[in-house]
Structure formats: structure tokens, C-alpha cells
């Protein structure tokens, strides 16, 4: 049984963990509310076969679900499995599937082996919050775009077999990533300015978000340093207070040491907030933007496919024309058949391309509305954490003031 550190409880109870989403369907104006939380990490099994199970709790008024309030136990690979299923079904037709939370072999091994130290606790907490954000992301994505059975997949109380991320599965995901990296060398004749503009916009956003993320990671690091230095100073102030022979001053110095100790704890908490509320958020959005870029790339691929079939058709037609002058009726018929097939393919290609373009437009505008709202709410939560810290500081220093004044 896992031992929970109280520090992490404070994060579970923070409002950010309980997002209440109200998503409006663009066409219908229906509002779906769904409220998901991931909690209670529990170690199941022993040794290398052990895994962490998380409780996924859903509260919803969406008619799709048979119940309003239910929870299931899922493990991390379930989430990955879900992502790979969704990605394979929806990515190529233009839906922005939120990227899967990151898998870390090292962290997981530590947990399996039972190392219940600070870093493995942190790892579990990180993962739990990542899964929660992921789930929220999934829910938004799916609810507002396609009220499908897929939704049932994740949230039904029945244990659904989406687990066991096979080696094939991992390989597929790696390949997908590699594909994205081997940057598109496709030159597309963009007839639609909207796409060009949006693509550029997302490129820039990506660059800026990465920079922001890096800065925030720096901030987290420095705040942790500050906490350590404050703790050290508190100790030295206490020693100074002990050495001081003037009674009132000695007491005041000891009080100062206590205040600084409390402030050290504040800095630690703030560093955690910096991390969980801000840094991880940015990290998620960086990955999300990559997914968006991926969707644009998919469109290009679709276009390419269409163009390829068109070129092939053209070639076949030329071949047909040539064959007209030769006396090879069989070959001619074969070519005619092939042309028919290719014509069909070209038409399909065009339809696919138009469909994906349409879907992307919808997805992007949904993204811009919902994600931005979501991002803004998270930032507000972070700012609230900063406010909390300031409030505590005021309390501590105001308590110290009379002690300092009492020195005579």
C-alpha cells in the first residue's frame, strides 16, 4: 500500500484538479458538462509486474452515459492504449487528438521496485496530474466534436480491454513520432490562405510556448534553491539567537529563525505550484500544439495522396491514348479498367482532402476557443497560488513585528 505524502494532498484538493468544464457545441448550442478526476494511486502487484492503478471518477450530465456518477480503475498503459486507438482512428481525418501523457521507464521502475522516496512520490503525483489533464483534454475533445461511442470506451464502468501496450503498439507510436520529425518535404500549392496563416500562427505559438516553458522550468529550479537557502539561513539565525546574550534580542532572533523556516516551506509549496500549475501546463500545451501541427501535416499528406492518384491517372490516360493506335485490345481494356479505378480514387482523394480541410477548420476554431479558455483558467489558478503565498507572508511577518518591537 502506498504511503501518501501530505504535501501532495494539498495538490489534489486544489481547485485545478477539479475542472468543471462547460463546453458548448458549435452547432447545437447544447452544453455538455463533464467533470473528471484522477486520484488514489495504488500499487497493484509486486516486483516488475507491479503497476500503479488510478481511480478515474466521472461526474456528468451527458445523456450518453448510463450513470451520472461513476468511477473505474485504470492503469497508465490504458491511457496510452486509448490514445493510440483514438489517434489511429481520428488523426488522419483531421481531429486534434490530445497527445498521450509521457511514459517514463525509470520513474515507473522505481515505483515498481517499491522505492517510496521523495522522487518516486513526485513521479506518481506528476503522472496522476498528467493523466487527469489528459482525461479532461480527451473529454473536451470528444464531447464537442463527436459524441461517439468512443467516449463510452473510456468512461464506462466495465473494464475495457484497452490495456497491454504491446511492443507493436509502442513501435507504431515511435514511428509516428519519427514521421513527424522527418519534416514534411511536401510542397503544397496552398489555395486557401486560411491554412497558411493558421499554420504560421501555430509555428510561432509553438516557438514561444517552448521558450516560456523553459523560462518557467528555470523559475521552478531557482525557487527550489531559494527554499534551500532560506532553510539554511533559518538554522544560522537560530544559532545566532542562541549565541546572543541580550535576552530580548536573542528571543527575537529565534523568532526570526522560525519565521524563515515557515517561509522556506512556503517557497517549497510555491515551487510545487510553479511546477504543477504552470510548468506542466505549458509542457502539455507544447505537446498539444505539436498535435495540431501534426493534423496540418496530415492534411498535406492527404493532398499528396490525391495528387499522386491524379498523376497516376494522367499517366494511365496517356498510356491509353498510346494504346489506341496499337492493336492490343486486352491491354487496352485493362488500361481502361485501371483508369476507371483511378478516377474513383481521384474523386475519393479530393473528397478526403475537402473533408479533412473542413474538419481541421472546425477543430482549430474549437481549439482556439476551448483551449484558450482552459489555459486561461489554469493561469488564474496559478495566480491564485501566488496570492496565497503573499497572504501567508503577510501573516508571518505581521506576527514577527511585535517580537522585533519588543527588543529593548
Amino acid at each position, binding site marked *: 500500500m502506498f504511503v501518501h505524502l501530505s504535501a501532495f494532498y494539498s495538490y489534489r484538493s486544489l481547485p485545478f484538479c477539479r475542472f468543471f468544464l462547460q463546453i458548448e457545441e458549435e452547432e447545437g448550442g447544447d452544453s455538455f458538462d463533464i467533470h473528471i478526476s484522477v486520484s488514489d494511486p495504488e500499487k497493484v502487484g509486486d516486483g516488475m509486474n507491479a503497476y500503479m492503478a488510478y481511480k478515474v471518477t466521472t461526474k456528468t450530465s451527458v445523456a450518453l452515459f448510463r450513470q451520472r456518477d461513476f468511477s473505474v480503475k485504470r492503469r497508465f498503459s490504458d491511457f496510452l492504449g486509448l490514445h493510440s486507438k483514438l489517434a489511429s482512428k481520428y488523426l488522419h481525418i483531421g481531429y486534434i487528438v490530445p497527445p498521450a501523457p509521457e511514459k517514463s521507464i525509470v520513474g515507473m521502475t522505481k515505483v515498481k521496485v517499491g522505492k517510496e522516496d521523495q522522487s518516486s512520490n513526485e513521479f506518481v503525483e506528476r503522472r496522476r496530474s498528467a493523466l487527469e489533464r489528459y482525461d479532461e483534454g480527451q473529454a473536451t475533445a470528444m464531447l464537442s466534436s463527436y459524441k461517439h461511442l468512443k467516449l463510452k470506451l473510456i468512461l464506462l464502468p466495465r473494464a475495457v480491454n484497452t490495456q497491454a501496450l504491446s511492443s507493436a503498439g509502442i513501435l507504431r507510436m515511435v514511428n509516428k513520432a519519427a514521421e513527424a520529425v522527418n519534416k514534411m518535404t511536401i510542397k503544397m500549392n496552398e489555395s486557401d490562405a486560411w491554412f497558411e*496563416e493558421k499554420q504560421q500562427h501555430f509555428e510561432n505559438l509553438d516557438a514561444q510556448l517552448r521558450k516560456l516553458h523553459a*523560462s518557467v522550468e528555470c523559475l521552478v529550479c531557482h525557487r527550489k534553491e531559494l527554499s534551500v537557502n532560506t532553510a539554511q539561513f533559518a538554522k*544560522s539565525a537560530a544559532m545566532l539567537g542562541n549565541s546572543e546574550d541580550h535576552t530580548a534580542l536573542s528571543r527575537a532572533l529565534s523568532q526570526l529563525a522560525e519565521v524563515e523556516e515557515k517561509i522556506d516551506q512556503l517557497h517549497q509549496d510555491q515551487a510545487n505550484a510553479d511546477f504543477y500549475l504552470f510548468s506542466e501546463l505549458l509542457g502539455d500545451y507544447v505537446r498539444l500544439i505539436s498535435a495540431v501541427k501534426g493534423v496540418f501535416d496530415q492534411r498535406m499528406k492527404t493532398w499528396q495522396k490525391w495528387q499522386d492518384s491524379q498523376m497516376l491517372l494522367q499517366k494511365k490516360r496517356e498510356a491509353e491514348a498510346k494504346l489506341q493506335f496499337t492493336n492490343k485490345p486486352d491491354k487496352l481494356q485493362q488500361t481502361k479498367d485501371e483508369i476507371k479505378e483511378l478516377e474513383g480514387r481521384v474523386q475519393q482523394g479530393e473528397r478526403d482532402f475537402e473533408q479533412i480541410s473542413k474538419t481541421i477548420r472546425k477543430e482549430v476554431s474549437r481549439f482556439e476557443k476551448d483551449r484558450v479558455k482552459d489555459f486561461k483558467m489554469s493561469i488564474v489558478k496559478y495566480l491564485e497560488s501566488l496570492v496565497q503565498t503573499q497572504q501567508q507572508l503577510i501573516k508571518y511577518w505581521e506576527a514577527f513585528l511585535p517580537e522585533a518591537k519588543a527588543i529593548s
Partner: protein
Amino acid sequence: MSSFDENNKERLRSVSVDLNNDASLLIDIPDALCERDKVKFTVHTKTTLSSFQKPEFSVPRQHEDFIWLHDTLVETEDYAGLIIPPAPPKPDFESPREKMHKLGEGEATMTKEEYTKMKQELEAEYLAVFKKTVQVHEVFLQRLSSHPVLSKDRNFQIFLEYDQDLSVRRKNAKEMFGGFFKNMVKSADEVLIAGVKEVDDFFEQEKTFLLDYFSKIKEATAKAEKMTRSHKNIADDYIRLSATLNSLSAEESTNYYIIKFCLKLFQNFLRVCLKKVEGRVASDEELKLTELLRYYMRDIQAAKDLLYRRARALADYENSNKALDKARLKGKDVSQAEEHQKRCLQKFDTLSESGKKELTNFKARRVVAFRKNLVEMAELEVKHAKNNMTLLQGCIELLSGN
């Protein structure tokens, strides 16, 4: 390069407290000029004492002049029983200068925003160092002027009044004393102080206390400095963050929402970190604490020096006793030895008497200074936190109300 005038200077509260409310000799440093490494202070004196030629006058002085004054006071036998105020430390612009250099090198990798902000930040740091050094030199002179014995010192008067370059006089003085006393003090003070058998309870207590307190305050100063540096790093991070947010908001985007909230976030961070910057220059809380500790660390060293001198005097006295005994045995130069012994005893007694007074005063002064600075620091912390809170809450309202 950068000058510093009355309007500009915020009356920085000094870490040292004047227990003597005597207005007969008022000294301050209203102006200072910084050229490369050299800082030129304008020392301004206002006096009602007849020993000075004019009632009000100003002279330009360099850091080395202050050191000269301090050293001559230390080396004056008559002042052996006094705590000589610690010499002001050399103006140290190394840190901001190094950072400025690094900033110049990294200019290509930053946006214009970021560069300007960081530059401003560095200039503020530079100014802070400058203000600090002026203050520390001022405090040194003010402590001298408030001391009943030291304020009457001839060299002190020369320092205040002599309207020509002191460097010539400085050279002569160095040749005369040759830094004799200083060298001695540096080598074996702790051992000597610890080794001498103490007859007086008061001094025994003081000795134990000062030795221990010194090491503790040194430690506390070092840790406080580390804390201050961490705060500075965080402020720099905020600057970088706000610059990035600014670029984000400047993004030409058809997405209205992203721009709006980024701008607001940017404004928030900018104001919060601007406050931090302002805070650092004028009245930074942690800096205050660090300054307080650093100053008293030096002051306690000066008190230890007094104990050392007294210990040496005691050693001399004991030696003279032995010499007298030897002389009596031999029957030679007895009266000489008696004279010597009497002188040693006298010296030791005067030292002890004035030393006791000085150390008692020192404690009182230290307690008052600590109180003043701790109170000020706590008040500033509260004020700063309240400001930040208002700013942040305003921002939250703006963002939520969207």
C-alpha cells in the same frame, strides 16, 4: 559616469545607530561620482566647534583616504582602549560589471525586450551597489563624529578639512607606521586572546561571547547573502517570462483571446517584477538583513581587536613583572624596571577601563540597531507582500472577468 545627487538619493537608513544626539559636528556625503573603478565622495561637514576653521565646508575624498584615516586611528596608542569603527569596504562593482559583460555577449540570443529589461535591471543593481558604498562610507565618518574621544582626533580633522589632495600626506603616514600594528593583529589575535589568563569576570564573559558570536554572525551573513542571490535569480526569471509573454502577445494572430489574456498576464508579471526591481534598489528587505549582519560582523571584529590589544597589554604587564623580579635579583636597573612595570600597569588599567565602557556601549548600540533594522525589515516585507497581492488580485479579476 554616474553621479548621485541630493534629489536622487533616497535617505537610506543606516545600519549603525547614533546614540549621541550631538549636533556640534554633523557629517554627510551628499554627492559622489563614479569613474570606472574610482569613486569620489564629497564629504560635507557642518560644525559649531571652534577647532575648525569654517562652520561649513566640503572636500573631495577617495576610498583610500578613508582607509588611511582608519589605519592611523588604529595605530594610535592612545586609542588602544577604544573600538575603532570598522573601515568601509572597497567599492565593489565586480558583480554588476561581470553581468553586464555577459549580457553584452548574449545580446544576440535575446529579444530586444528582454535585453532592454535585463539592462535596466543591471543598471539598477549598479546603482544599488553605488548607494550602498556611499552609505557605508558615511556611516564610518558619522561613528567617528559621535565618539567623544575619536571626534577630537587631529587626523580626523585633517580628513574633514584639508582642502587639497590627501594622497601626499597618506604616503608619509604609511612610511611612519609601516602598518606595524595591523600586521600584528592579523596574525595571532584569537590565540592570544584565548590564551591569556583573565582576571576580570567582565572581560572573561565578553571574550567568550564575542568569539562565539563572531563565528555565528559570519555564518548567518553568508547564508543571508545566498538567500538574496536566489531572490535576484527569481526576479531575473520573471523578467525573462514577461519578455516572452510580450512576444506572445505581439504575435500577429487572428485569435483575439490569446492576445488579450497574454497581454494581461504580461502586464501583471511586469508590474510585479518591476516592483521587485524597485524594491531592490531602494529598500529590499533581504538586502537590509544582509547589510545589518555584514556590518555587525565587521564591528565585532573591531571589538575583538580591542580585546586583543588589552590582552597584549596584559601580557606586557606580566612580562614587565618578570623583568622587575629579574632586575631585583640582579640588583641592576631596578628603578628602570619599576618605571616600566608601572607604565605597563597604567596602560593596562586605562585600557581595561575604557574597554569596559566601549564594550558596554557597543552592546547597547548593537541591540538598538538590530531592533531598528528587524522592525524595518518586517514592515517592508508586509508592505511588499500587500502590494504584490493587490496587483495579483487585480490581474485575476481582469482575467476571470473576460
